[in-house]
């Protein structure tokens, strides 16, 4: 009889402990970010022996101004260049992959599954595997150090996962409407953009978020493709501020914050699509 009476506080204590642990871990996970943020907003002299020393405490935007208008690699330019690269590098492979993914989902042809598998396997290829030939190829056609070259490279590189993701998505759509449209004489393109495209918009959103962040966060391709400082994207600027022997943590922290602001902001706003996209291309393979 005393059971329920005794169990109630027992459960409560447990719940409280679980909540304390979970929130404690969550906040602890932020410490490295917190440290960089605190350094970014304070003069270097105050934080040289640890950002957690709070006196004296004179918050300032000078570090951000220094990184934004830096003479070596201004973040204002880096972020602009990142946008100039990332936006086309998102929409080109989206279109290309949306078409090819549809083909793999709906059309039958000999060897289709092998072709599809070899495209999907490209997701495992390390970027280093194409670096040298790409460098030589781009040099020979005059696209080295050009945004167009990097955009084409990112577009090609994004196709495998977008094809996989879109193909898996199309296969969840009922095929009957498309068949009916074809019987009525609609062309393949008309069937695609009148019937399939409107239904695929949520999947496109997931692709846009993931691919944009992927390109924005990329470092290696940008590093080998964009050699001159006036073409540097944001991730390149972060390393160019690093200095040879000592690291200017004030500038570097501000640059790091500015560089991560775009993908983190995008994630916060479009979290739903991001998670859906990530789970889509991992679990529902």
């Amino acid at each position, binding site marked *: 009889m005393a059971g329920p009476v005794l169990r109630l506080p027992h459960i409560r204590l447990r719940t409280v402990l679980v909540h304390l642990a979970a929130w404690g871990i969550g906040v602890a996970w932020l410490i490295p970010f917190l440290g960089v943020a605190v350094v970014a907003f304070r003069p270097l002299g105050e934080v040289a022996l640890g950002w957690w020393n709070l006196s004296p405490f004179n918050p300032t935007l000078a570090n951000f101004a220094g990184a934004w208008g830096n003479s070596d690699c201004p973040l204002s330019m880096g972020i602009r260049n990142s946008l100039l690269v990332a936006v086309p590098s998102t929409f080109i492979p989206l279109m290309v992959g949306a078409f090819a993914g549809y083909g793999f989902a709906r059309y039958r042809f000999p060897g289709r599954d092998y072709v599809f598998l070899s495209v999907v396997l490209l997701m495992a*290829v390390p970027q*280093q595997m194409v670096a040298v030939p790409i460098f030589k190829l781009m040099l020979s056609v005059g696209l080295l150090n050009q945004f167009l070259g990097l955009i084409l490279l990112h577009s090609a590189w994004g196709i*495998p996962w977008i094809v996989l993701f879109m193909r898996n998505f199309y296969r969840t759509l009922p095929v009957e409407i498309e068949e009916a449209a074809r019987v009525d004489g609609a062309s*393949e393109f008309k069937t695609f953009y009148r019937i399939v495209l409107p239904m695929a918009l949520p999947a496109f959103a997931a692709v846009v978020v993931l691919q944009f962040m992927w390109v924005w966060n990329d*470092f290696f391709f940008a590093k080998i493709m964009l050699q001159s400082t006036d073409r540097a994207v944001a991730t390149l600027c972060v390393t160019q501020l690093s200095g040879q022997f000592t690291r200017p943590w004030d500038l570097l922290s501000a640059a790091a914050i500015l560089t991560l602001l775009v993908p983190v902001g995008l994630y916060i706003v479009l979290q739903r699509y991001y998670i859906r996209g990530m789970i889509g291309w991992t679990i529902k393979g």
Partner: protein
Amino acid sequence: MGAPNRARSGPALSFRRLAERSTFFMPAAILLLLLVFYPIATTIILSFFSGSSFVGLGNYGAILQDPATLNPNGLSGGPPYGTLVNNLLWIVIHLPLSLFTGLVLAVLLQRVRGASIIKSFIFLGMVTPLIVIGVLLGFTIEAPVGFVPAFFGSIGLPSLDVNWIAHPTTLLFGLILGSVWSWTGFSTIIYSAGLTTIPKDYFEAARVDGASEWHIFTRITWPLLRPVTLVIVTMSLLWELKLFDIILGATNAGGGVGGAADVLALQMYRYAFVALPPEANKAAAVACMLLLFTTLVAGFLFRRLLTGDAPKPRAARRLATSTRAGE
């Protein structure tokens, strides 16, 4: 026997439809052939040459004998161990730790209010550019600005209250543990999604039957999460093999003090883009070794995914293989 039937199903396609259908693939085919397949093939060929003369596996042999790849003194003397060993160390330490932490967090967060906020905190490391993660880790383990050395100093471990960046051992293991911190968001999110696919009745029925939480976990949660675990393991392995930005961001193109945190991808980068004159052939050989490892890992996952989601008992798998062979 099924194939001809399938081919005959439906009316033959008109030429116009066939042409239309192939244009769906055209742009992707052109981009992939030119900018992915062609460079991969070229890199493979390059790896067997030295200048213009064919050397067979000579580049591979030279790389494996290079102390930068495998350091024979590392066993007794500590880091640098060499790039190959370091990538392996990452796999041995980073994979189980991030997997386990993610699983524990996902299970813990199931019944917590505001779990989505906590998950976002943990996931922050996954949306941040990896080069920034590298800078952040370097900052966190450097003394005296960083939090980690000061933390160990304050709990009375002066041997860890040093500049982690400046000592090979602390640098290597600091970055490995730091990358667990950044990558755990992945396993947490994927495991959380996996947990929601398990019907709630299973847990409730088990609780009604008086099963302990541990029992529920080992008998229900863990077995049903196996396909999810498989995906996380594969993705983590690929990530650990492709490691590049974090090391460069935290240290330099040389992999830090004495090359202690050097990895294969970084070694390739140095051969191709830092060395003067560039050693494109050795770079290609390192890249091919990486490709070999990643393809093995990915091939393993895709085979599983194609033969069905859950890993099957051996007998069923043998049956599936023999059926395929008999086609």
